[in-house]
């Protein structure tokens, strides 16, 4: 596998999920009140509220960039009719954005790695190849690698993400917010 110069070996997502983390704290204080001497009930354990644990676990997976967990939660949860539109939209856009970032960050990638990043782990290699070739990637059977192709219209979408990750002004705000979030957890 090879990488284009100047990019990280990890995919970079600049999710502004701190607002969601703050909300999860408010959820915890609302739904899991305990005596001061007791540790608070984790939001992920609030099983009486059926969709809060999977949504909270999704937030954690996004924050830790656990791709397998993100797709597993989105695809294995039986979302209610009220939540299904949001879960479906998130899955679609997350997959699309990840594909664009893969096209930017990698020059070549194995089918199994692409499947992990795109939530296609339960698909056969043939199906994964067909999907990605249909998106313009090129299969090199001799090396067993997919050659990515970054489309011109992807650049603008990915540029902002990379800029923030490298410390653009929005990135600084993001890091500051992250620090405050971290301090509230101590």
């Amino acid at each position, binding site marked *: 596998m090879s990488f284009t110069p100047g990019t990280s070996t990890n995919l970079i997502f*600049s*999710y*502004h*999920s701190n*607002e*969601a983390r703050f*909300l*999860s704290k*408010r*959820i915890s204080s*609302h*739904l899991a009140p305990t005596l001061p001497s007791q540790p608070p009930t984790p939001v992920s354990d609030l099983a*009486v*509220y*059926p*969709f*809060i644990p*999977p*949504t*909270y676990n*999704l*937030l954690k997976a*996004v924050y830790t960039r656990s791709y397998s967990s993100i797709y597993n939660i989105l695809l294995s949860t039986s979302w*209610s*009719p*009220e*939540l299904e*539109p*949001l*879960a479906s*939209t*998130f899955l679609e*856009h*997350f997959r699309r*954005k990840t594909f664009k970032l893969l096209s930017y960050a990698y020059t070549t990638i194995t089918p199994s790695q692409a499947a992990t990043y795109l939530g296609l782990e339960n698909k056969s290699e043939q199906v994964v190849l067909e999907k990605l070739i249909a998106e313009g990637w090129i299969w090199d059977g001799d090396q067993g690698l997919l050659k990515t192709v970054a489309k011109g219209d992807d650049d603008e979408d990915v540029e902002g993400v990379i800029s923030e990750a490298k410390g653009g002004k929005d990135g600084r705000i993001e890091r500051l917010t992250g620090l405050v979030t971290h301090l509230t957890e101590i």
Partner: protein
Amino acid sequence: MTPVSSDSTSSRNRESSNSIQPTQAAIMALASNPTFSVEYIATLTANTQHTPHILVELLADLEASAITTTLTQRTTNLISTYYSAFLLSLLLIDDV
């Protein structure tokens, strides 16, 4: 009894009802509790005209109602739906 398009409801409620025809049960529920109900949340999440930012704004407006809702077996689904929709919407802001 009037659905959410009544003049007495907010402009955002009117916006949310534009592309959705609520069921009679939903209309009844909205009339008795025009804001914080599963039916209202359903109209918000099903409305494809809403951007994630608008959706978050609309859901944030309901947080005071959520916090003051008595936690009982009857309100479990409402609270679960509300907070889950709010979290998913915040994640969507990052992704769309």
